[in-house]
């Protein structure tokens, strides 16, 4: 680059020098011409003057040779002393040739015209170049009065001038070459000087481009350059600033890139970890969901239960449940939690646990569902909801009591009848609004009646053509299964469903449950206590929790259901409840101080002819209610002690009260005949 600039400047210089030399040469030639003309003029004027001093009359016969000899030296005063005088002509006032150095001669118009012109008043010497390269100068010869008396023409060759030039040609050439060389050197030096800062900047720029700082020498030179006050100095200064700036930015940028890279890799790591955690969570939620559906369903010859669930790829929130309640009824539920993912699975886990616990605390399904709903509403930040069907089958009575909380109505398949939808109870989904009342419906179940419960994963399952399995198809298939046991019924439908969907992707959990009421007597005779003989079948029994709050209402409902089924009246119910209340209160308040978890309390009840038999057991310390302090009911009010009254009441309300301590358990048996009108009015 720099060398190119140097080259260009050199070429320009050379061209310039050559042009200058040419101009010099031309000027030299011109000056030679000028000096030739000047010589001719001086010569002719000198001749004219000397002729004037001679006798004008004699001009006609002037000795021109003498004249020339006289005047010849005077021509030496000019530069052109080397000029050779070739001819002198003298004209008279009429411009006729008066004489010449060559004697009489023929004159032409070219000689006469200048002679005449020169004799015009005020005309000076006329000089003309002749075709042969020589010069002619014509001057008037004027008298003292200024009038022309004649003219003289002088001719001389200019060969002398060419010779003069040839004489000095070598010196000219040498001079020109010297100047040329000097100029080339000067321009080379100048170009070098001019190009140097640019070269430095180029090197420095290369360094900056490569991400380095300019070499110290280069930088120092540039700094020196920047101190000069010309454009280069300014440019170098600007360049140095720029290089510094670029360097600083580069460093900053590099640091930034390093930081960002580190940050990015850190984030990637965190992301990977988080993804792994999510995968683990999903897997865990998946296994939680799978684990939370009961693996063992209740086994009771009076009813059959079969259930199935396939979670979709994402974790869903379907669940089913079936279990025996503490008071010996078969409770079951099917439910679908809105949404998918971990939140839904957790909601499902909570919902199932709450419903199971509520089913044992509240004898009426409507209360159990309402309680579950209240609790779900209190712990539902994601505003999920659960559609659920919850039912309880009283296996003794052959009744189904159910609540439908916004779920697809299950089907009832009575023997030899078309499937029918179980009428909706109008409840809304759980978890939406607290403190709702849910209606329940009770329907009788004939032996052989089947129930089919499902979630929308079945009816909305699609085949490859995007068609849904649908309710109609389900009803049709259910009609074809009439008489099949619950497992066969369920498998039939699932088989039909698989055939329908083929290889299409499963979008939702597929969950279903089938139950069949068989009826008949309780399968296993109840063994009231260890070491005792078996009692006849027909007992209904419930396990009681050792807190009054949970046990009293449940025992009361248990007794009421039994009494209703057996046709006992309010008096019997009240007496039985009162007795159980007293026994339970006594056990719970005194039997297990501080170790309630060890309590094992149960109530069993059966009818025998016109009598009702109640058996109450607990594993507390030995206590015979019959030996409790007899209370004198005849005492005046003021004299009666407060409390201690209950156990005594039992003895007075039952026909027969028996206590025994057997195998570490207190067993109290109460028997009472059906109340008669006479007894009531007694």
């Amino acid at each position, binding site marked *: 680059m720099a060398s190119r600039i140097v080259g260009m400047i050199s070429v320009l210089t050379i061209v310039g020098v050559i042009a200058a030399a040419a101009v010099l040469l031309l000027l030299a030639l011109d000056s030679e011409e000028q000096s030739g003309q000047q010589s001719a003029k001086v010569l002719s004027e000198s001749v004219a003057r000397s002729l004037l001093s001679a006798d004008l009359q004699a001009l006609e016969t002037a000795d021109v040779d003498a004249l020339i000899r006289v005047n010849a030296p005077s021509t030496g005063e000019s530069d052109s002393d080397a000029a050779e005088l070739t001819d002198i002509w003298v004209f008279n006032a009429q411009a006729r040739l008066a004489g010449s150095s060559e004697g009489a001669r023929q004159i032409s118009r070219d000689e006469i015209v200048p002679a005449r012109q020169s004799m015009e008043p005020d005309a000076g010497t006329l000089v003309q170049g002749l075709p042969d390269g020589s010069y002619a100068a014509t001057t008037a010869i004027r008298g003292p009065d200024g009038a022309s008396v004649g003219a003289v023409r002088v001719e001389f060759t200019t060969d002398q001038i060419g010779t003069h030039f040839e004489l000095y040609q070598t010196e000219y050439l040498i001079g020109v070459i010297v100047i040329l060389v000097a100029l080339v050197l000067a321009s080379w030096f100048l170009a070098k000087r001019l190009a140097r800062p640019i070269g430095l900047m180029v090197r420095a720029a290369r360094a900056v481009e490569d991400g380095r700082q300019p070499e110290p020498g280069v930088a120092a030179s540039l700094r020196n350059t920047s101190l000069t006050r010309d454009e280069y100095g300014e440019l170098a200064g600007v360049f140095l600033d720029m290089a510094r700036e670029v360097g600083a930015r580069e460093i900053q940028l590099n640091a930034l890139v390093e930081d960002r890279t580190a940050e990015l890799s850190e984030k990637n790591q965190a992301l990977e970890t988080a993804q792994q955690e999510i995968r683990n969570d999903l897997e865990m939620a998946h296994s939680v969901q799978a684990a939370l559906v009961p693996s063992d369903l209740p086994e009771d010859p009076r009813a059959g239960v079969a259930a199935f669930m396939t979670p979709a790829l994402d974790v869903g929130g379907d669940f089913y449940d079936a279990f025996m309640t503490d008071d010996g009824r078969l409770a079951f539920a099917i439910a679908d939690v809105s949404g998918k993912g971990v939140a839904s699975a957790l909601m499902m886990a909570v919902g199932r646990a709450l419903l199971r616990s509520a089913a044992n605390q509240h004898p009426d399904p409507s209360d159990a569902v309402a309680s579950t709903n209240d609790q779900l509403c209190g712990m539902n930040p994601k505003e999920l909801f659960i559609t659920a069907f919850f039912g309880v089958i009283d296996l003794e009575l052959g009744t189904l009591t159910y609540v439908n909380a916004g779920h697809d109505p299950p089907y009832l398949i009575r023997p030899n009848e078309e499937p029918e939808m179980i009428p909706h109870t109008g409840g809304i989904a759980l978890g939406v609004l607290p403190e709702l009342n849910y209606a329940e419906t009770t329907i009788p179940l004939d032996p052989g009646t089947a129930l089919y419960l499902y979630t929308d994963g079945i009816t909305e399952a699609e085949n490859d053509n995007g068609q849904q399995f649908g309710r109609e198809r389900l009803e049709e298939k259910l009609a074809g299964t009439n008489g099949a046991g619950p497992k066969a019924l369920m498998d039939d439908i699932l088989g039909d469903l698989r055939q329908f969907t083929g290889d299409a992707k499963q979008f939702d959990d597929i969950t279903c449950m089938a139950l069949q009421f068989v009826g008949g007597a309780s399968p296993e005779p109840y063994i009231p206590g260890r070491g005792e003989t078996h009692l006849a079948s027909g007992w209904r029994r419930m396990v009681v929790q050792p807190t009054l709050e949970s046990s*009293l209402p449940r025992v009361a409902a248990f007794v009421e259901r039994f009494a209703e089924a057996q046709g006992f009246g309010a008096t019997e119910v009240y007496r039985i409840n*009162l007795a159980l209340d007293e026994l339970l209160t006594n056990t719970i308040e005194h039997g297990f101080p501080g170790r309630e978890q060890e309590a094992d309390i149960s109530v069993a009840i059966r009818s025998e002819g016109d009598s009702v038999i109640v058996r109450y057991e607990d594993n507390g310390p030995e206590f015979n209610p019959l030996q409790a302090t007899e209370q004198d*009911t*005849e005492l005046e*009010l003021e004299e*009666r002690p407060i409390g201690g009254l209950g156990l005594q009441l039992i003895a007075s309300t039952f026909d027969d009260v028996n206590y025994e301590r057997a195998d570490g358990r207190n067993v109290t048996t109460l028997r009472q005949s059906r109340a008669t009108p006479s007894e009531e009015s007694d």
Partner: protein
Amino acid sequence: MVDLYPEYDDSVLVLNPLGRIDGTNAKAFEEALLGRIDAGDTQILMNFEGINYISSAGLRVLLMAAKRTSQSAGQLALCAVQDHIQEVFKFSGFSEIIPIHDDRPQALNTF
């Protein structure tokens, strides 16, 4: 919390409890009823029309209330007691010490 649905008929405080009185709410029933007596009401009629179950824990509270009112020269009486409940008053001998009337107007006449 037990609501006694109190109202006054002249100087007689008429209480109208509902549902069950058993071991689970006897304590609340006791506080509510004895609180009334401590506040100065000694002429009290318990309208038992809405009570369908009372256990011995509830009876005990009635006994305490009867004692307190009688100490303050007042009276505690019951009316409209359902048949199956009336039986327990009979068996326990409470019907001898706490007057039980068929209905409310008849009961109010005895104050």
